[in-house]
């Protein structure tokens, strides 16, 4: 945002070229005060666009972890009403708790992935991301075989895939056991749940973007604008900590499709992958595919040296 420029406003009520002349200090301060008030009012003008100013209850509510079931229900009801107003459908907003004895983990076979990006769009479609400006949780990196330099990877390839001497590495939130994004959050708007998924409370987030800077995987996305999501494409099955519509000014990221996975289903990206490269499951269950892969395959994690200890593994065919 370095090229952001303020429009050059020339105070047109000044006598030409006589900036300091003929104006008393008192008059100046008076005008300046009015000017400042106008600027403040205008700076707050995005609030003009808020259909509903947050209610007093929203301002005074407690942190998610301190809410009673009744508090939650009241908050959810307000969100339902807001979504219905904005999108014309009554959403099925839930807040499923973590399942007992479940720790989610993910594995991705980079020997199989062909880079077709179906996962990217399945995710966008499931999780109500903004279509414009575009927000996507998954980024597929195309790299030369034999290299593993994510800095020089190609993000914008098109056409037929796979390209013979390349391989593809999708990157998304690594759901770290030691998440730097959580540590830097000044207001505790993001935290790891019992099933290992790092979530964001979009009502609590103040949009400071520290977490985005702290994440070594470039997994967090910021809503610079009001998310643009066509009404017909809203997924009405939504979770409070996952895919409910976001507002301008908050962070979001992959949450392993909590609204699906806590109901026992696979995440949308696993469900769609045509090559079967994406694997998901309960790492505490020794018979799950994820436990099998970790036991029998060569797995690695991205940027192991930064000590984040991810639950997102990459593996090879052998």
């Amino acid at each position, binding site marked *: 945002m370095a090229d952001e420029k303020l429009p050059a406003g020339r105070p047109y009520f000044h006598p030409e070229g006589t900036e300091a002349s003929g104006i008393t200090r008192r008059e100046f301060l008076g005008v300046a005060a009015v000017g400042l008030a106008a600027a403040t009012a205008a700076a707050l003008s995005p609030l003009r666009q808020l259909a509903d100013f947050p209610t007093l209850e929203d301002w005074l509510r407690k942190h998610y972890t301190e809410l009673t079931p009744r508090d939650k229900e009241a908050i959810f009801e307000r969100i339902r009403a807001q979504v219905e107003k904005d999108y014309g459908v009554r959403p099925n907003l839930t807040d499923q708790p973590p399942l007992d004895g479940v720790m989610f983990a993910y594995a991705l076979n980079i020997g199989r992935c062909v880079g077709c990006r179906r996962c990217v769009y399945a995710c966008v479609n499931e999780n109500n991301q903004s279509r414009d400006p575009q927000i996507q949780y998954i980024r597929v990196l195309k790299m030369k075989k034999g290299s593993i330099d994510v800095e020089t990877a190609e*993000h914008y390839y098109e056409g037929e895939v796979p390209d013979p001497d390349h391989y593809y590495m999708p990157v998304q939130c690594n759901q770290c056991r030691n998440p730097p994004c959580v540590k830097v959050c000044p207001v505790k708007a993001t935290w790891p749940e019992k099933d290992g998924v790092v979530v964001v409370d979009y009502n609590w987030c103040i949009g400071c973007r520290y977490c985005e800077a702290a994440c070594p995987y470039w997994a967090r996305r910021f809503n610079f604008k009001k998310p643009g999501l066509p009404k017909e494409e809203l997924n009405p099955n939504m979770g409070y900590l996952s895919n409910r519509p976001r507002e301008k000014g908050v962070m979001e990221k992959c949450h392993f499709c909590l609204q699906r996975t806590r109901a026992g289903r696979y995440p949308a990206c696993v469900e769609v992958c*045509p090559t079967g490269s994406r694997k998901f499951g309960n790492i505490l269950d020794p018979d799950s595919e994820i436990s099998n892969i970790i036991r029998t395959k060569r797995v690695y994690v991205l940027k192991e040296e930064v000590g984040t200890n991810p639950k997102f593994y990459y593996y090879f065919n052998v």
Partner: protein
Amino acid sequence: MAALAACIAAALYFWFDPLGAGERTSEPPAVKPAYYDTTPVRGRLKTALMTEGTPCGTCHDSMDPPAVDPSKRGTFHSQIVLRHGANVRCFNCHNSGKRDFFSGFGGEPIPYSRVETLCAKCHGPHYRDWQQGAHGRRNGYWNTAMGERKTQVCIVCHDPHWPVFKPLRAAPAPRTLRVTASAEEH
């Protein structure tokens, strides 16, 4: 004076919103359903082994199996192109006597519904990985106590006659801010 000018400039800036941070004017673009279609690349599995809707036995039950060289395939099924490495014989897979079935190691019939055991004859490690969930694809519920899990069989991804996984067309590249070191945005 400078302060005043700055205030007014800021007021104008925030009010007219030159960078367009405020409300949008047009409907945001839709995501094409083809980009998140979950159908496997070869479509859904058929219900039985057949060609153009006719079960194999309809013709073959009343035909004698070829008494001569089994590598000869005749011309009737010329649409079948076999590019399966060194696996060049129809009867490595198909059952010569019971044409609606595949053929096990000892020639025993394998029904269409167990086609993965046919592939297992020659692809043991892949079959093992597939059983454990490391190869192939699972859909539905990861938690089988909460719903049904569907394990996709080999032939919804691999054409048995020409099994190499065919190229796909990539869904569109992102239009988001570029993150490479060379990019000027961001």
